[in-house]
């Protein structure tokens, strides 16, 4: 049994803490059970089940810190792991950036655990695979997919009186459908905390439709196009912006968020309709309400009306700069609009619909320029309707330029734990064509 209740977790951690002789001691206890199934060539290829539990002890004497872990929780093992952390601390050089553990904190109650997800069986996973494979065979396409589900807990206790506990569940699903003539490919991604929201057959149907629609794509010239980005395509580039919100990197002058003599905190950097925030209690994309350092996670605004509202400050950097720490976000939520995908297509005179962006890599961290390719469903739009599938493009684009060229925001969809809208963007830069299907 890898998932402990709050009381079971507290008891184990209190026992471990009772062995501590250090100036301070902080204990994290985590456990999870996860299962997966993988299929390809219309057949199940592998499946697996994994159960993990780990207790991490961090002890410090002054600014000398040591960390040790164990996966057995009898008294002797707990005593050994605490002693080992203390030995390592005594041997370590001083870490001038060490911050003493936090005292007691107030946390909101999270909404991340759903029993139905924790109850998923191997038979259910096989049914999901079958819900892709059977319709694939009927439609002369080939399915390759992956389902992973997990249930777990995290808990934390320290010698300054902090205690935290959270339970969560999650499921991630992707499927790629390729037409058997090799000229069409479609893909969908779905992720939830609550498995009852997942419809494997409907998701598979969407991927099959995309694969059939994308057959025998035409080549059109690369260049600057108006694009409609599906939420997973948009997230691919938005992640680049999300990874770059560290205040220290910005202060040190080595981030997109740096500028001549300072940072872009308070500057308007993108279209004023852009609002991005994080919220652990959002019902569609809930997360734990505290992080691994024990800091409470609250609703935090990152971009408001296009202006940089916050940068993330570690406890060390916040103290050095005389400001309050701002924890890293656990999700991103971007304000959307009312427009459906159909509405966005209907209002487009000439443009490209992009299902997905792939192999996205940083080209220049100074400007947040990224490159990558479209994949699994790229379509030409003319006079408000999809005309035909087009060959995939390589793009070179910055999320900052993309969000400055915003035309319309559409409805939001959950993608990879974030809530991202469809978006129509003008002058998106495609630099070459790809023959890949």
């Amino acid at each position, binding site marked *: 049994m890898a998932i402990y209740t709050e009381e079971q977790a507290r008891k184990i951690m209190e026992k471990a803490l009772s062995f501590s002789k250090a100036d301070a001691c902080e204990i994290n206890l985590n456990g999870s059970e996860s299962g*997966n199934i993988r299929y390809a060539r219309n057949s199940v290829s592998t499946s697996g089940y994994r159960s993990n539990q780990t207790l991490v002890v961090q002890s410090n004497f002054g600014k000398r810190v040591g960390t040790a872990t164990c996966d057995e929780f009898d008294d002797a093992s707990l005593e050994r792991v605490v002693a080992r952390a203390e030995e390592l601390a005594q041997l370590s050089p001083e870490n001038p950036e060490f911050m003493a553990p936090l005292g007691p904190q107030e946390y909101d109650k999270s909404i991340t655990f759903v029993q139905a997800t924790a109850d998923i069986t*191997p038979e259910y996973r*096989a049914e999901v695979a079958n819900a892709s494979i059977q319709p694939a065979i009927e439609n002369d396409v080939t399915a390759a997919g992956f389902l992973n589900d997990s249930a777990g807990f995290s808990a934390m206790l320290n010698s300054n009186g902090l205690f935290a506990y959270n339970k969560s569940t999650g499921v991630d699903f992707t499927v790629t459908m390729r037409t058997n003539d090799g000229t069409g490919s479609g893909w969908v991604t779905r992720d939830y905390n609550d498995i009852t929201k997942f419809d494997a057959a409907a998701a598979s149907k969407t991927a099959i439709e995309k694969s059939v629609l994308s057959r025998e794509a035409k080549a059109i010239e690369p260049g600057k196009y108006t694009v409609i980005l599906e939420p997973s395509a948009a997230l691919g580039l938005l992640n680049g912006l999300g990874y770059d919100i560290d205040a220290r990197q910005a202060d040190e002058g080595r981030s997109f968020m740096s500028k*001549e003599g300072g940072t872009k905190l308070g500057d308007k950097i993108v279209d004023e309709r852009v609002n991005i925030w994080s919220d652990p209690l959002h019902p569609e994309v809930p997360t734990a309400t505290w992080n691994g350092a024990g800091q409470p996670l609250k609703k935090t605004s990152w971009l408001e009306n296009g202006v940089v509202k916050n940068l993330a400050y570690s406890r060390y950097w916040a103290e050095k700069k005389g400001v309050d720490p701002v924890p890293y976000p656990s999700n991103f939520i971007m304000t959307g609009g009312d427009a459906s995908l159909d509405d966005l297509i209907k209002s487009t005179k000439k443009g490209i619909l992009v299902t997905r962006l792939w192999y996205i890599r940083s080209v220049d961290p*100074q400007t947040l320029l990224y490159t990558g390719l479209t994949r699994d469903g790229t379509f030409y739009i003319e006079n408000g309707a999809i005309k035909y599938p087009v060959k995939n493009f390589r793009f070179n684009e910055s999320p900052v330029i993309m969000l400055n060229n915003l035309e319309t925001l559409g409805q939001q969809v959950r993608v990879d734990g974030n809530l991202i809208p469809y978006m129509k963007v003008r002058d998106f830069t495609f630099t070459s064509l790809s*023959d890949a299907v």
Partner: protein
Amino acid sequence: MKRRDFVQMSSLGAGALLLPTAMMGNTIATEALLAPGMDVMVKKRMADVALNTAKSMGATYADARIGRYLNQYVFTREDKVQNVVNTESFGIGIRVIANGTWGFASTNSVTEDGIKKATQQAVAIAKANSKFQKEPVVLAPVAGQGEVSWKTPIKKDFKDVPVSEKVDLLLSANAAALEKGANFVNSALFMVNEQKYFASTDGSYIDQDVHRIWPTFGVTAVDQAAGKFKTRQAMSAPMGMGYEYLDGLASEKLEGAAGLKLYRNSYDMVEDAAVAAQQAKEMLTAKSVDPGKYDLVLEPNHLGLTIHESVGHPTELDRVLGYEANYAGTSFATIDKWQSKNFKYGSDIVNIVADKTQVGSLGAVGYDDEGVPCKQWDIIRNGVLVNYQAIRDQVKMIDQNESHGCCYAQSWNDVQFQRMPNISLEAGKDPYSISQMIKDVEKGIYIAGRGSYSIDQQRYNFQFGGTVFYEIKNGEIVGMLNDVAYQSNTQEFWNACAKICDKSDYRLFGSFFDGKGQPSQISAVSHGSSTTRFNGINVINTGRTV
């Protein structure tokens, strides 16, 4: 791969350095790295428990891998040690074939009871999945190897070198960079020892001790007034060597074009850090490239990544067949092209070999993770595609009956599957040096070190950056360039391969954390080459104003 599959260890250069969670294990004391681990006779007894249990439950094949994976990582920035991590992971993975279907289970309880339970689970999974199995597994034969062993031929075991010596080396490198005007330095040492025992119902009992090392850094120069920054990464390569890689032997140093200091089988980290600081500052004011067609002169520590992405991945047979369609993708190098025996992957001088034996390489082992003795074989000969990379359950699909020996799992906890062996470009046969190559180029760019890389899901269209770029005009290097990336199509690119330097310039590039599969697994692989010229490649300018 999703961000939550990684553990943030440190910030290296401008981006955060994230390690795959799979690279972690239980944290242990440094001295514990030296503990001997389970005796080989006990491992044999434990492995036999798995094999016998599997057979008694009706499995037609079984293998067991008892693994002890030891890692040590050291992270520093400027004059501070950020983290020293020692980890150990120990357990057993059992793979079986029942009803013609694979099943796999693993446990960290390496006891008779624990192993029996895991084996029963593996057989049960195989039987459950056989309901949806449409292609029964057929294994290529491999002779039982008996009781054998293999070790990476190292001179200095990293586990014997005190942490203080490693910390001193990194801090000396950082100091050298700061002294030469760098504003920030992040440096790291990754050291890995896989102690793995393999046994199978074919009669093999194989004990292996595998070592790998990767020293690296990012040196950043900042122009605060202009709001600009540039980072120069290390010119080291991850290697299948011991700590002796860090000796910095003069005999293993080479001079590249533009006076670059380059390294073969021994790395001088302090020297490279000092040069990096000078180059990072130079990059702040270097000329922005004029886009257009150029002849590219690609240094091995750069070209290795291009080989990896444009030849290594597309010739993996599982990709070609569609097993990776939902994640990494498929391949343009389809079976019909290989069957034609005349598919021109590259020009006549392009010879690419797959290899699991080259001394010092990351891929070198005695036997792969399904007990097949390792070897070398051709992938491209005289420009023509002649073979793929395949393992025991795949080779029948290309009408072969001998596995290539390139099966690997990142730990005992993960199922083994086809992974890339070393994939290397053979050196030119005639004497030809880098300085001669530069002299022969009228309008070109010399690129050294790895940079940004991106390629499509069938491996046609790619775009690569680099670490440093120099403009070549009329046979001479005329200065440093910025904002360079080249875009090409794999087949066009390799057919534009015009000249390859001789073996005196041959070196290994390495990828330490190559990802593949769902759930994703990492592996380490080397790519050897000599400096090579490609004619008329499209170069774009990546400079932007935001």
